[in-house]
């Protein structure tokens, strides 16, 4: 059987893996982190862009529009959170009105449906908390929001049950062409394949440059965010962008699929591609700019901050296709709208690779995946029923998000299950609420320790040396 290696288990690698599972091939995903969705796919705005922002006739525009249209079906098929809530681009100054119209026309050229320009007062009827300064908005009803890591995990799980193999803590250090393609990892192992697909996010240039003479350069551009408590969810019902001006691209204010409010991101180029720390200046900028859109924002309601790195290709567009080296395929420079595009990229790349390699379709492919049953969103009848079936659903572990032991055990034991605290958090939301895991950390560590048969001192926050405790206390 043909062998395919995918480097990187972000949303792009995972989507391609899932689509390739539709064919008879031996697919292996190599990921340097301890879990899927540990790179950019876990820290972004989570917007399913309508597509008015992308430059017409680029890959970004094409995959954005195609991807956006796939979300309604896909989110049901793979059971991940998605809501088509619409977006508004806020214009604060009459002088910038032409730029708003230009955006409208760009959207039309890209094929975005339902766009309309509304005067400020009309916009405030729909969004009562936006600033009095807003003079007009561009409204895009087809914009949506998605749980980015839930989506990535869903792709990966579905790929896994359909036979794709995932290996973690496999940092690729070399890719070379011999008789077939050889992929070498930092731990000394190496793997052979007929086709290598590079989905390494901000490191996709390094992977490309290992295999190809035609070099690539990807700049990591950091975006910082703040997340507000759910009680502030009433502040916005659309994703609220600011009209890009000479002052910059602006900061968005958006609901998340779980009802929090997200504000951000900044945009600063980084030399260190692993640096996802937040900064005082960055967070101040986020707060100040976001308050221009929604003046009522209150810093005291912030429950956490984070940042992600855009994989910005200096040439501007996505790079998708087999490189000059046969058997080496790039899916690189996938910055925003990468999340939106991921389903369409997965579909396109799998079909393209299948054609190149003459793959036959896999008759046993199961497209449907069922997620973890979420206690917090059930009604009381469903709750009573599930506790009867599995009493662990009666034990609430995370108070703030009302996550039960039943869900945590499921998150650990399902295909590609959680292995660390962050893994449990992203799969169940335990620890994501207002207390940010103050109460449940030790309980979740105990459950991980019990289910994985691992000592408490070996339990990590996110793999590597991120151990939570360092040993026993003195006796």
């Amino acid at each position, binding site marked *: 059987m043909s062998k395919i290696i995918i480097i990187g288990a972000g949303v792009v690698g995972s989507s391609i893996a899932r689509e390739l599972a539709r064919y008879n091939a031996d697919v292996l995903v190599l990921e340097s982190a301890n879990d899927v969705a540990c790179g950019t796919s876990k820290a972004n705005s989570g917007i399913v862009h309508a597509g008015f922002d992308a430059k017409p006739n680029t890959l970004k525009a094409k995959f954005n529009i195609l991807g956006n249209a796939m979300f309604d079906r896909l989110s049901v098929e793979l059971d991940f959170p998605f809501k088509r809530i619409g977006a508004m681009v806020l214009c604060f100054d009459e002088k910038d009105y032409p730029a708003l119209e230009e955006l409208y026309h760009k959207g039309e050229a890209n094929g975005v449906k339902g766009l309309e320009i509304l005067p400020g007062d009309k916009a405030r009827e729909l969004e009562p908390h936006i600033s009095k300064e807003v003079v007009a908005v561009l409204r895009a009803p087809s914009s949506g929001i998605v749980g980015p890591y839930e989506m990535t995990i869903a792709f990966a799980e579905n790929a896994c049950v359909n036979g794709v193999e995932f290996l973690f803590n496999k940092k690729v250090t070399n890719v070379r062409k011999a008789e077939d393609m050889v992929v070498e990892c930092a731990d000394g192992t190496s793997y052979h394949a007929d086709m290598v697909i590079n989905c390494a996010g901000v490191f996709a240039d390094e992977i490309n440059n290992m295999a190809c003479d035609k070099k690539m350069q990807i700049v990591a551009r950091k975006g910082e965010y703040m997340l507000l408590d759910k009680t502030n969810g009433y502040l916005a019902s659309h994703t609220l962008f600011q009209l890009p001006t000479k002052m910059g691209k602006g900061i968005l204010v958006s609901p998340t699929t779980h009802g929090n409010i997200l504000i951000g991101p900044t945009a600063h180029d980084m030399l260190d591609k692993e640096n996802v720390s937040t900064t005082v200046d960055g967070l101040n900028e986020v707060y100040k700019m976001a308050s221009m859109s929604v003046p009522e924002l209150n810093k005291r309601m912030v429950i956490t901050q984070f940042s992600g790195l855009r994989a910005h290709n200096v040439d501007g567009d996505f790079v998708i296709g087999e490189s000059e080296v046969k058997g080496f395929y790039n899916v690189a420079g996938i910055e925003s709208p990468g999340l939106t595009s991921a389903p369409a990229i997965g579909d396109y790349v799998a079909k393209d690779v299948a054609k190149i390699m003459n793959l036959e379709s896999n008759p046993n492919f199961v497209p449907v995946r069922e997620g973890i049953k979420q206690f917090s969103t059930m009604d009381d009848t469903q709750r009573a029923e599930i506790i009867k079936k599995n009493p662990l659903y*009666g034990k609430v572990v995370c108070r703030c998000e009302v996550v039960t032991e039943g869900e945590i055990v499921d998150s650990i034991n399902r295909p590609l299950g959680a292995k660390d605290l962050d893994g449990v958090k992203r799969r169940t939301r335990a620890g994501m609420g207002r207390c940010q895991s103050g109460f449940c950390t030790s309980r979740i560590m105990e459950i991980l320790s019990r289910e994985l048969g691992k000592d408490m001192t070996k339990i990590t926050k996110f793999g590597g040396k991120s151990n939570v405790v360092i040993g026993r206390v003195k006796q």
Partner: protein
Amino acid sequence: MIEKNLIIIGGGPAGLAAAKSAYDSGERDILILERENTLGGILNQCIHNGFGLHTFKEELTGPEYANRYVQQVLARNIEYKLGATVISVTNDKVITCVSEADGLVKYHAKAIILACGCRERPRGGINIAGSRCAGVFSAGTAQKLVNIDGYMVGKEVVILGSGDIGLIMARRMTFEGAKVKAVVELMPYSSGLNRNIVQCLKDFDIPLMFSHTVVDIKGKDRVESVVIAQVDEKLQPIMSTAQEIKCDTLLLSVGLLPENELAKFANVQLSNVTGGGVVDDKMMTNVEGIFQCGNVLHVHDLVDFVSEESELAGKCAVDYINNGKTESDYVELQTSGGVRYVVPQKISRKVDTGELKLKMRVANVFKNRRLVVEVDGEEIFSKKRPVVAPGEMETITLKADQLDKVSKGQSVVVCLKEV
């Protein structure tokens, strides 16, 4: 639906004291719902000495103090459920509770006492920038890992915030062989008890740096260092004073917040100063028959005061079950001149509890002041205080004859004045 006269949510010191006192006031149909597997609340992890000096006139550890109340509840055969988490409360007093043993159960109660305690303010709540690596804990989480679970959280520690839990953890970590390099406090004073500063820091030569904060956390997998800096009068960091301290652990003791998610479901009015409910002198909230006491109402410095306040709530809840709501005319208490809040926030004219205790916290450290209660500009109470500080709760006891001077429509102000 199961009918009960009184349901108490939370089996910590507040819930236990309320239950005991409700029983002693004649009520027999009482149920305590507690989500943990033991009674006693947060005290179970506070294994240090210093509890109970007021109540029992002796120094007990947290678990010992809790156990005194647990024994009193057991002796009275008061019904309680463990591992039972209340997930909602409505304003018509329907409680939804889930547990492994009983599944989902709905109760209806004539009166409810919310005694759910508090939680710690997390890192996100104070916007510290930096790496999101392992090794950053709230002090209470570290306290649980060390004291209950028996695991060390780190070797070299910096503590941000000088709240009591942080101070106590500085000593605890030192006992366990860790090096506590500094306690860093944003304000020019501590929010903890003075006795804890002496016994937990001074006795171990741990530096306490006022008007400083953490501006960066460094480290890839686990904390490798933190950067601290002095702050100006507006509490903004002065970056030229930044210094890096090598450490593997950062503990945060930056404030406690009443756990009021359930109260919100029931439309209980909350104070944006205390974060707890707005109550009258019978500890009743704006929702008839729903009472609050302990840390869910306002964060206490000493558990003795929690017990005292909760005994009052228990007694008043029984009074409500038997006689309904007897009072409707309230006088709202106002604060000024450095008093940040006062609990209760409103009092009824007829006070059948005899004397009335007002509890309050001040907004800053003040020297040589008087705590004063004024009715329409006339002082009805005054008490000299050489020093008052935000970390220590102040109490005023008003006698019946002083209260007689208060009637509807008057303005009652609690304030600090120069001596």
